[in-house]
């Protein structure tokens, strides 16, 4: 399987609930980034976690990184209908070219 596998592929929750998305990668990384994409629109950078960090918070977002398991998770707390979007993890490897390897993404639907 390819680098940047995410699960679940689709997630449907009620407003106010928490949403957790997981991402796994294959090779060593420099950092791992999470992006949001509204349907048919551009990619919005949400949060970045470096390989020497284990957890990071930004507002309602919490990201964890487990380099021993080569996995990361994104938690959105107290979800809102406006959080409905696709969420992608992207791994920055050790090369100097800055190439990002994206996951397949999780489509999140938050029902009002």
């Amino acid at each position, binding site marked *: 399987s390819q680098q940047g596998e995410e699960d679940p592929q689709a997630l449907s929750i009620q407003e106010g609930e928490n949403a957790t998305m997981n991402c796994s990668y294959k090779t060593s990384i420099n950092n791992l*980034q999470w992006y949001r994409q509204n349907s048919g629109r551009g*990619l919005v950078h949400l949060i*970045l976690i470096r390989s020497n960090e284990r957890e990071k918070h930004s507002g309602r977002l919490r990201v964890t990184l487990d380099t021993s398991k080569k996995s990361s998770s994104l938690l959105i707390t107290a979800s809102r209908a406006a959080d409905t979007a696709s969420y992608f993890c992207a791994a920055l490897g050790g090369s100097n070219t800055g190439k990002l390897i994206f996951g397949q993404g999780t489509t999140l639907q938050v029902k009002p």
Partner: protein
Amino acid sequence: EPEVTQTPSHQVTQMGQEVILRCVPISNHLYFYWYRQILGQKVEFLVSFYNNEISEKSEIFDDQFSVERPDGSNFTLKIRSTKLEDSAMYFCASSSRTRTVYGYTFGSGTRLTVV
């Protein structure tokens, strides 16, 4: 907040025609990228560009593709002879350095439709 600007937002072209997708990266960024996303699929790396040359390209980026930074502000992706399978959303991105603390900034994309 600085933005990466892409034009056009949507382009329809006939198979076999050349297209040029344009991007204006953030002014103090030094690293530039093109990615593409076929409808319903994941975002794929095409090419990275630094110091006026390609630093890495993927298998997708064959001889039909080329990039250029003609005037110090624009960054273009040219597809010489488009194929149906080139239909996708193309994203430009820039970063201040490869091992960036702040992540990339992506443009809002150009949707290319080849008919």
